[in-house]
């Protein structure tokens, strides 16, 4: 072989690289755009309503003549439905993950895992009506005082919705625990259950934590289910039987209603949106750190 090593690079390669770069930047600019709009419109809101009112008032009544702008009722609604969802999805998801990763035969795992993930593909509007017309009437037979719109039904259904997220990501984390640790435990005379609960699960803790947090942040951001079935009544309560309103459902209510743009009432949704954004951003950051620790193969 002889000849110069110098040759121009094919121009098509550069074009392709540029196109791919542009595609990548679309999501970056979209995110930036959203943040800019949220901050700008929220600034308009906070020029009329003080941050102290926003964080200090316990009533949220922007559409009433006696206006109050306290975020707490909406935040409480979000936290209540999320807590119910997690109470459903955490034990079920974790047990499903343990079964799939540790006990299911390889063939069952190959069939069950994609089936579980199908749950994540169901449109949330379907879940919402399922909560309203099926789960709530069913629950009313057992739970006295359960309103037609309530936090409990949609919370449970939301738990089913985030179940695949928690189960699937936890399963990945458990499955990724090196076989050498299981072998070490077996060789020390540990039974299967103890190996799972004392060795494997602690080693997968970071990954499971990340899975749960991502599930929580999906529940916080979930909109259709709570907008349809939870009642759209901002109320500072921890009673899951009464109608409530979440931050997301409030945004839907204003967006779909006849509130004129540019008014204070209209700007409230940006302030609520910003609060929601900060909440999920914080949770995702924690999950990201946990997952990075898993990927590095590090320990607690």
């Amino acid at each position, binding site marked *: 072989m002889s000849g110069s090593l110098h040759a121009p690079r094919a121009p098509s390669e550069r074009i392709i690289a540029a196109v791919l770069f542009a595609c990548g930047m679309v999501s970056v600019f979209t995110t930036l755009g959203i943040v800019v709009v949220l901050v700008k419109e929220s600034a308009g809101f906070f020029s009329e309503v003080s941050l102290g009112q926003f964080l200090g008032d316990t009533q949220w009544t922007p559409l009433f003549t006696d206006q109050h702008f306290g975020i707490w009722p909406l935040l409480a609604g979000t936290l209540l439905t999320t807590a119910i969802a997690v109470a459903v999805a955490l034990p079920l998801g974790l047990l499903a993950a343990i079964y799939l990763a540790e006990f299911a035969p390889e063939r069952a795992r190959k069939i069950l895992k994609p089936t579980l993930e199908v749950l994540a593909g169901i449109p949330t509007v379907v879940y919402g009506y399922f909560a309203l017309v099926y789960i709530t009437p069913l629950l009313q037979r057992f739970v006295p005082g359960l309103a037609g719109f309530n936090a409990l039904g949609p919370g449970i259904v939301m738990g089913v919705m985030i179940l695949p997220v928690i189960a699937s990501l936890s399963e990945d984390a458990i499955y990724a625990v090196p076989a*050498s640790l299981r072998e070490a435990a077996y060789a*020390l005379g540990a039974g299967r259950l*103890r190996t799972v609960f004392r*060795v494997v699960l602690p*080693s997968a803790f970071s990954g499971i934590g990340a899975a749960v947090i991502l599930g929580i942040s999906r529940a916080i951001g979930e909109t259709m289910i709570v907008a349809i079935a939870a009642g759209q009544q901002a109320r500072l309560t921890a009673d899951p039987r009464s109608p409530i309103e979440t931050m997301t459902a409030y945004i839907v209510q204003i967006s779909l209603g006849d509130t004129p743009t540019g008014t204070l009432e209209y700007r409230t949704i940006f302030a609520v949106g910003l609060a929601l954004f900060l909440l999920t951003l914080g949770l995702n950051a924690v999950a990201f750190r946990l997952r990075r620790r898993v990927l590095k193969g590090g320990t*607690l």
Partner: protein
Amino acid sequence: MAAHDLHAWFGANEALKGITLAFPETRVTAIIGPSGCGKSTFVRCLNRMHEVVPGARVAGRVALDGQDIYAPGVNPVRVRRRVGMVFQKPNPFPTMSIRENVLAGLRLSGEPVPDPAGTVEKALRQAALWDEVRDVLKRTGSSLSGGQQQRLCIARALALEPEVLLMDEPCSALDPIATARIEELIHELRERYTIAIVTHNMQQAARVADFTAFFYQGELVEVDRTDVLFTHPNNRKTEDYITGRFG
């Protein structure tokens, strides 16, 4: 401990073709042979770890104090309590401290540990690790060097006070200095334990073992006193292997 006509399979592939081999008490027996000869599979059959692999199967007998560990009704968990194992790659539990690692065997089998501090010190002393870690027992096991991790794994096995210690190429992931420490340790441990060590390294077998067995293609070719096997092998295959003509 003694194996009698031991066969092992991975699926349809017969990895051990009828091994009969006794391990004299409180002696070190080395198992040497080229890659794939079945030496690791063999020691994994001695504490019923072979069957943990999906599709793996065993036939034959292994006597431990006159009891066949493959007899019906024998609980493999009980067998593993009495036959300790150290693996090729050090595998301390990453979520546990050094101290908890040593106690792991006892805790994982759900036994009460009457004197944890004493048990930890004794096992770490036996594994020649105590002086290096006595002040850092609360650190994680993975914070130690590779050689220290391997000695921690040995201490973890010794804490269960086994009768037999199986070592599957315990030095292959270690540097020469760490290897020398482990070899010294094997010398000390043979006072009390029956040891089977798989090794790729013939010099290591010559240094640590009283007896050496040569495996080839799933069969035991020859076993003898180490000095005899390395100087006057009976079998041509053994001679070819130890003189480096193959393997």
